[in-house]
């Protein structure tokens, strides 16, 4: 959390998700980087730390579960928020087992994700 700004990485293969989330979160004062390709996101995560990671689970050619595992392994303090259109109890359970902060089913409201991110941020700041 350098310069006091909370950093967020967003990974979703549907461009509209980043396109909508980035300005909305930046407007709330977050530092945001977005990716539509898992490999690029992974590379970026290896380069630097993010306070919060928002990722889809089911994407073309990327395993979101694998991505979030790697993030949590490298940075246990990073809070991961999962967004997905195909939520099953099993995937939800698996993500929580991996230490995911919260789970949002698509489609969600901008306000809903902002709320979850604010909670994650509060947890980090308290942490």
């Amino acid at each position, binding site marked *: 959390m350098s310069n006091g700004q909370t950093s967020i990485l967003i990974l979703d293969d549907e461009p*509209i998700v980043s396109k909508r989330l980035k300005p*909305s979160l930046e407007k709330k004062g977050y*530092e945001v980087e977005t990716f539509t390709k898992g490999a690029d996101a992974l590379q970026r995560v290896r380069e630097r730390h993010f306070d919060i990671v928002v990722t889809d689970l089911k994407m073309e050619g990327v395993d979101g579960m694998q991505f979030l595992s790697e993030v949590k392994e490298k940075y246990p303090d990073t809070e991961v928020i999962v967004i997905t259109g195909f939520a099953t109890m099993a995937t939800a359970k698996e993500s929580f087992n991996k230490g995911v902060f919260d789970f949002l089913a*698509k*489609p969600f409201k901008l306000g809903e994700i902002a709320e979850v991110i604010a909670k994650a941020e509060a947890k980090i700041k308290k942490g």
Partner: protein
Amino acid sequence: MTNFLHRFGRLFQRKNQESVPFKILFADFKKSLELNNQILDLIAATNDKLSGDYIFDERFIQTKCRKLSDLVRELIVTINHLTQQKYPELYNTFHQIEEDIEAVLQGKILYSVRDYILDYDSISRKVVDAVGGKNAHIAEIGSNLDLRIPPGFAITTAAFSAFRQENSFENLISETTKQWQEKKITVKEAARKIQQEIMNSTLPEKLERGIMEAAERLVKKQEETSPRFAVRSSALGEDDVKSFAGQFDTCLNIPLEKLAESYKKVVASLYNPEAMEYRLLQDFRPNEIMMAVACQLMIPAKTSGVMYTYDPVHPETETIIINSAWGLGEPIVSGKIPTDHFVIERQPPHQIHEVRIVHKTERMMLQGDKGINMEPVAETHSVESSLKEQQLTELAEIGLQLEKYFKKPQDIEFAVDQQDNIVVLQSRQLGLQQEMAPRACDLTRLVEKYPIILRGKGHAAMGGIAAGPAWLLNSDGDLGDFPMGAILVARHASPQLARVIHKAGGFITDIGSTTGHLATVLREFRVPAIFNMEDATSVLKTGQEITIDTECLTIYAGIVKELNYYSFHEEAIEEMYEYRLLRRVLKKIEPLNLLDPKDENFTPRGCRTYHDLTRFIHEKAVETIINLNFYHAHNRESQAGQLVWDYPLDLILIDVGGGIKGESGQGIRPEQISSVPMHALLRGMSYPGIWDMSPSKVDFSSFMSSLTRTSATNNNPEEVGRNLAVVSAEYTNINFRLGYHFTVIDTYISDNMLDNHIYFRFSGGVTDSTRRSRRVRLLDEILSFYDFLCEIHGDTVVARLKRMNKRSMLHRLFLLGLLVGFTRQLDVKMINDAKITIFFEQIKKIMEENNE
């Protein structure tokens, strides 16, 4: 309800082991109702996503559409099962609609209209996919604002498609484009090849005739003696921020007989090299490459020009920029001649900041039969200002009006005709220079200095930023003097407010549903709106300048310029591909065209959307159950009869187990009804005191007759008697069609609390939408007060209640009885909002007095 089917099966077994047929039929009937409800709920929930408040992707749209297709297909199977395959044509209609939906999902654009030609007075933004942005905008300006536009008509994308198909140059286009993209030929070669092919093609005969007829109609209407036309492009996406400005051809001073030729020329310019390259860069899907064409009467301009409602490089200077010169606009727009330059203040009285008059040596003029030509300007004239001071003010007012109407800074082309009238030729969103936009991450800091009036309450009905003076709607509800660009603040989101949507900068309400009618219209006109802010009307004052940010649910005091500039740069959510797609696909799903079952179009073939199919099937399901069990009574296991009552309620009762005592030979008297839930409902419906609360005396029998007769002229019960109640000792299912109202009640009430449920759906109505929405609000308030879980979609109320003890459930059925009898009257009596409270109190009183 599935639970219920199971229990219902057991009821039958108790009554008669051999009675399979009706049991199956009724199971089908119940299933059709269940599907009907699911479909309508899903349609409403999907439309809600257009508010911009949700993040959804293409996959979401596909999933929802396919889910809907599955449900509708199942509904058709069910009705055919119920009616022994009486409606096989439903499958054809369904397949056609499903195919269309799939095509839209694949990115195809279906023509919302099949007409080749649409006159400007019949065009709105709803048909933008058919006429293109330029036509849609200019036509709307003509019909909704008090501004002059060139009279004209649109040649639609349907015409374009017919032209393309008849000449089958599809292949040549895709082949040539491929060659270019593979760098085998240059873009210029590709363009030349395609354009040659288009110019050598012939127009479909029907199209050529259509163009000529429309032009002649226009000439006659305008009483033009020597008509000349301007033929302009109106391609899809051309008027967006991603602008194709100047990439397509315009043909000027065209005589009637050359219109067809000019049409081809404009269409061919769709394949100008710049346009081809531009499309490659942008997110244009092949199917979105479509050209509609604008055909307008030529304005013999004295002066022409371009106006920007903001300085695109320095919006913070709050100025309007106007460039103009003598003659027609083409050399001005394309920068071929120098122009006079004016900078004026956006704020009235529009003080002039800067005037730069240039030496204008040339102008483009109409040359009668010889087309257009550049001609020298007389020396005395050449250094004179091409616009008068008073015209600058007039232009500024026009610019601000257009900006308020379209909600974004505008780039406007105008002409001054020989009578000195200003004519708007085109208006589209002005792209501001990106670097000047405040960065989103700086916004928090930038807007800190503005006091917050309200924050964190409510729901966004339509996303966006709006700034302007607040305008409070007072209790008399008079919208007459609502000023252009103001932000409307009202207690309720009632549909009557839609009247000022085209003038409003934004909307705020204390109370309101984001799935209601008003929200739908706000989305259509893209007016930022927050509903349910709770106390906006008590905090805000008329004339107070405010800024609303729907995303943060915040109202700031003052005009927050930083947010305003920021929003100018934001890509309009509704222009994103996913939103375009959802809007297109909903056109095949949501509209309800079948209203009157007596209409000759009330047939499987008349259905044009999934909503139509659902509506048709519900009507037929109820009709079938009545016919089979009452008029033809072939089911011996069930007893059916018409209710004989003091009131002429055309109600057919079908008893499926212990719901009716004794014989039904002479009809069924109320005291014969042993169905516990039905009894409670009837008690409510016939409650004697209820009618006294109306301000004027209502004659009960005539009222009930208007309530129950679907048509005053048609008294044949076989045709009007579509009110049906299927009852057993513990169960009642009611389907009422009272005029244009629909009421469905499904309820099971026993001593076992866990099994108890009530489902209530009420929709439709004959009065104006304002009164209907008051009725919806009253129902919502009353039902919620009595513990129902309510959902409102437009003028439909769905209320559910489960798992209460028998006594409480019956008390609430009594309430439904009161409401069913009462709501039709409400349509007429709900003359103002105060009535809602009065009726509510009276209902509460009756409920207290009758709580046995």
